[in-house]
């Protein structure tokens, strides 16, 4: 059995979105990526609160860019997936795969 902390659903989705965005992006791009792919309109506050939590766990790191006029003179905070984040994704994916194997469609009959 695999060891390690399982990701929460939003943590999982956020890490996957960052991986899809070449491993690095800022909050707004992550939010839009999730909305476009899942149809879920997640608030920017939820995105940042989750990214902060992932950063505290060492799964992502962040760096601050230069302020830009289209952002009202505010700088971007770029988030990047770290090796620990990739490992956490693998563990979560394997766990989910193990739990859903041979169950395809089973819950539809319940």
């Amino acid at each position, binding site marked *: 059995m695999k060891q390690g902390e399982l990701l929460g659903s939003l943590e999982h989705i956020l890490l996957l979105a960052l991986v899809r965005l070449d491993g690095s992006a800022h909050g707004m791009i992550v939010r839009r990526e999730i909305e476009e792919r899942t149809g879920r309109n997640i*608030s*920017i*506050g*939820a995105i*940042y*609160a989750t990214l902060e939590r992932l950063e*505290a766990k060492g799964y992502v790191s962040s760096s601050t860019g230069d302020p830009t006029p289209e*952002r*009202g003179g505010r700088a971007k*905070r770029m988030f990047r997936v770290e090796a620990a984040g990739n490992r956490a994704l693998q563990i979560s994916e394997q766990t989910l795969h193990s739990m859903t194997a041979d169950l395809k469609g089973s819950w539809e009959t319940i």
Partner: protein
Amino acid sequence: MSRYSPPAFACRLFQTVLPVSYRGALLGDLIEEYNLHAEATSPSAARRWFWGQACRSIPFIIGSSLRNGDWLISVSTAVGVYAVMGTLKLAADFMIAKLFAPEPTAFVVLAPIVFLAFTSIGGCAAARIRFGTAVFLALFVMITVAVQIIAKACTIPVPWWYEFGFLTLGPLSVLLTPAAFGVLKPNSNESAT
């Protein structure tokens, strides 16, 4: 400069609860996406979207702040502001009661004015000292008023909506006054909108 201006009041209200660590980045993201929405739809639809994002984000930000342990410092600061403002308010109430003792109607009229003045000043002071403190101060005000209503501290007969006004407008003035006047702790990483 941004092509469209996001709702200034929503920005200020949002700033009162955002932690300094990602306040500038989050607001920048919101403004950037607001401009995209305004171009794709209309400025009014984009404003609605902006307000929706701000309101839906607040519970997550407060929850995150509680988990991080930032709340302990914010609560301590709020207790300090509450103690100072509470003492001054008690002194003001005492003076009003002395001056208008023979006329309870005057006290009933003056009490909410003094109360809202103190909650507004307290809210501004809390927001100026530390982000998130105003939220806890609003909570303390709400609890205090609720306890006073339950304990029937007001001996003068007043209608239910009078006390309900204290219960709702007090905490709201703590949160909204600093947002309305833009009274916030300055952040060196961020410039104005």
